[in-house]
């Protein structure tokens, strides 16, 4: 018999978004039964890796409008502007709330919270806790969540499927990893906060757990994935490991040079050159990530990059910042570069290259974090509201976790108020079907495919064809490849047939999720015949507002490519125009 857990709200994912949602639920009504389900202990969630900071208007020289304009322009006008407005209004409140919960934000001399410049932002508005902002944010939320006895945690539970009956989401199934048993969560509402899916690519800043599980869960349950083709490359990753050096490096004044020691960004519409050590907002090194990553690609084509054992690189030079500032503001960057690349930024330039970083796309939600499936909500990187449009600005995402994590919780409370209850018989039957499916995967023998083999083929194909620059030809072959891999997935065989902490099984399930997501990326990219933000087509170089000022919606099909539909972008006050990152027009 499968264990059943009755709960009011089940949250899948205990990263920044999931924890924020859980706290909001516990504060909204202490009597709510909250289940917080996560495949890793909360403090292992990948929010801990975020370095640079979280954006929110707080200083007197800043305004909501300026943050709005930066975000919408940065997103190449693919953001839903009503959502952006809501986001920007809530941002400072959420960051202040976090301060009240003890987050060790870096401070000005007068004791107020300090802000730093960030790429694509016209004003300094990024709150930071040295260069471990995500880490502190996650731990502050996790530790604060311990205050609330109504938050019941199910750590190291791997969620597999949503349980849907009568057109409502009524729970989910999850494997308790330590026992290998499948548990059924019967919930009045479910919130998915499972984070991104960068592991579809071979070279990424994302941790091993970022495999798009929640996206795939919702997708398979009939909720479409939105704007999946927009995959952000971060311009400054360590070439051997993909470890990120935060945008804060450039915010503090680090510069990018090619092998001729030339600041090449001025050749790509981000000039004129600014004096070294005096970064100017929104130009040169403080341009947006998509532009910087694209500039790298062109430099590489021109042969201006520096060859290293790990591929072509450009150099991030921070020597002029000096040891004191680096140790104070960027200690983690120094530690990472020194240990993983054996190069000390105080004394030498650091070779870096673009690396897959963030999914702008995700589970299609509305401004209230609700999906089209009643009872199902989503927030954080796994969701697409969309405030990030075609390119997320650095430091908007940590804030997004908070704002929409809370929003999802409040929407769920409201939804529960309508008196919904799970239908035990119907969803139990479904849960048993899930169990049957997993058991088949588990017990099957005579398979010919290996998990790591399929995974490598997938990541290689994504890197080659769905990377910084894309073509119809390449994307077609990626689509064909992923389609083929989805079929071959049926032939994998597990070698571990025991129950306790079976990571072989989990990797198989994660691979399945990544294949589903990867297909949505590739097909969405193939169909979007324009260049916008992080999606750049060599065969369609211009932005095409006529046909593609629209969100892509990918609808799942079990053994065929997804069906693509489009949805209008919400525009309230900013009409699409040219994204300008040249300092000249200031």
């Amino acid at each position, binding site marked *: 018999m499968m264990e059943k857990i009755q709960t009011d709200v089940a949250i899948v994912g205990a990263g920044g978004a999931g924890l924020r949602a859980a706290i909001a639920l516990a504060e909204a009504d202490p009597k709510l039964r909250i289940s917080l389900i996560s495949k890793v202990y909360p403090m292992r969630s990948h929010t801990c890796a975020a370095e640079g900071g979280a954006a929110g208007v707080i200083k007197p020289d800043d305004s909501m409008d300026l943050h709005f304009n930066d975000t919408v322009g940065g997103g190449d006008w693919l953001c839903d502007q009503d959502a952006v407005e809501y986001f920007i209004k809530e941002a400072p409140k959420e960051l202040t709330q976090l301060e009240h919960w003890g987050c060790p934000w870096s401070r000005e001399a007068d004791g107020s919270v300090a802000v730093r410049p960030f790429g694509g932002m016209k004003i300094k508005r990024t709150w930071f806790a040295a260069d471990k902002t995500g880490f502190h944010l996650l731990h502050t939320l996790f530790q604060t969540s311990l205050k609330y006895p109504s938050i019941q945690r199910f750590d190291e539970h791997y969620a597999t499927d949503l349980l849907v009956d009568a057109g409502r989401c009524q729970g989910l199934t999850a494997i308790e990893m330590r*026992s*290998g048993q499948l548990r059924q969560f019967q919930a009045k509402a479910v919130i998915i906060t499972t984070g991104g899916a960068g592991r579809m690519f071979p070279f990424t800043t994302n941790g091993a757990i970022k495999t798009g599980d929640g996206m795939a869960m919702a997708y398979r349950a009939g909720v479409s994935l939105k704007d999946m083709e927009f995959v952000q490359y971060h311009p400054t990753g360590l070439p051997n490991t993909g470890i990120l050096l935060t945008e804060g490096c450039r915010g503090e004044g680090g510069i990018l040079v090619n092998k001729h020691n030339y600041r090449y960004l001025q050749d790509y519409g981000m000039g004129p050159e600014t004096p070294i050590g005096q970064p100017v907002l929104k130009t040169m090194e403080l341009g947006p990530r998509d532009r910087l990553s694209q500039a790298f690609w062109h430099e590489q084509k021109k042969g201006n990059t520096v060859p290293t054992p790990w591929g072509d690189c450009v150099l991030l030079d921070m020597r002029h910042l000096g040891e004191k500032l680096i140790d104070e503001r960027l200690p983690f960057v120094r530690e990472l570069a020194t240990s993983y690349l054996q190069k000390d930024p105080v004394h030498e330039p650091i070779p870096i290259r673009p690396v897959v970083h963030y999914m702008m796309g995700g589970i299609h939600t509305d401004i209230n974090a609700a999906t089209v499936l009643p009872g199902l909500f989503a927030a954080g990187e796994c969701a697409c509201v969309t405030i990030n449009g075609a390119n997320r600005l650095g430091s908007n995402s940590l804030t997004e976790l908070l704002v929409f994590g809370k929003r999802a919780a409040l929407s769920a409370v409201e939804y529960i108020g309508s008196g919904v209850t799970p239908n035990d018989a119907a969803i139990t039957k479904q849960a048993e079907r899930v169990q049957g499916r997993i058991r088949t995967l588990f017990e099957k023998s005579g398979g010919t495919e290996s998990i790591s083999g399929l995974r490598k083929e997938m990541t290689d194909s994504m890197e080659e064809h769905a990377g910084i620059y894309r073509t119809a030809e390449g994307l077609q072959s990626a689509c064909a490849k992923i389609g083929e891999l989805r079929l071959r997935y049926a032939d994998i065989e597990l070698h571990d047939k*025991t*129950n*306790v902490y079976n990571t072989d099984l989990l990797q198989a399930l994660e691979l399945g999720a990544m294949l589903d997501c990867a297909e949505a990326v590739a097909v969405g990219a193939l169909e979007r015949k324009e260049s916008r933000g992080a999606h750049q087509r060599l065969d369609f170089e211009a932005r095409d507002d006529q046909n593609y000022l629209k969100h892509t919606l990918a609808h799942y099909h079990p053994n065929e490519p997804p069906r693509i539909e489009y949805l209008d972008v919400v525009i309230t006050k900013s009409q699409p125009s040219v994204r300008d990152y040249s300092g000249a027009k200031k």
Partner: protein
Amino acid sequence: MSRKPYVREVPKTTWYFRQGRYMRYMGREVTCIFVGAYALFLLVAIKRLSEGRAAYEAFLEGLSSPAGILFQVVTLIFVLYHATSWFNLTPKAMPVQRGEQFLPGGVIVGAHYAGWVVVSLVVLFLAGVF
């Protein structure tokens, strides 16, 4: 239930052989035997002193037996180890914050060593060694 967590027992009486740092720790801890022994030795000395000249001088006499000398030497070694390990750990127990920055541990340790040298010289001087 297929779980069966395996508990590795810690060897209760021999655990400190496992790592060099545990041996160093135990070395530091056993200095207490010598500190204690020396305190008792002083106690005896005070007792003899209270009993008058003869008793006290006999006591001083007794010191120069080989066992007496050995006791003094070994105790000195252990007490020196006690003193250095004690001073080396002071910055942890009592960090000093000046303005924003903490004083580097080395400075605090150094100050202790300097104080120690001064104290020792003063004691030796007052006792008429120089």
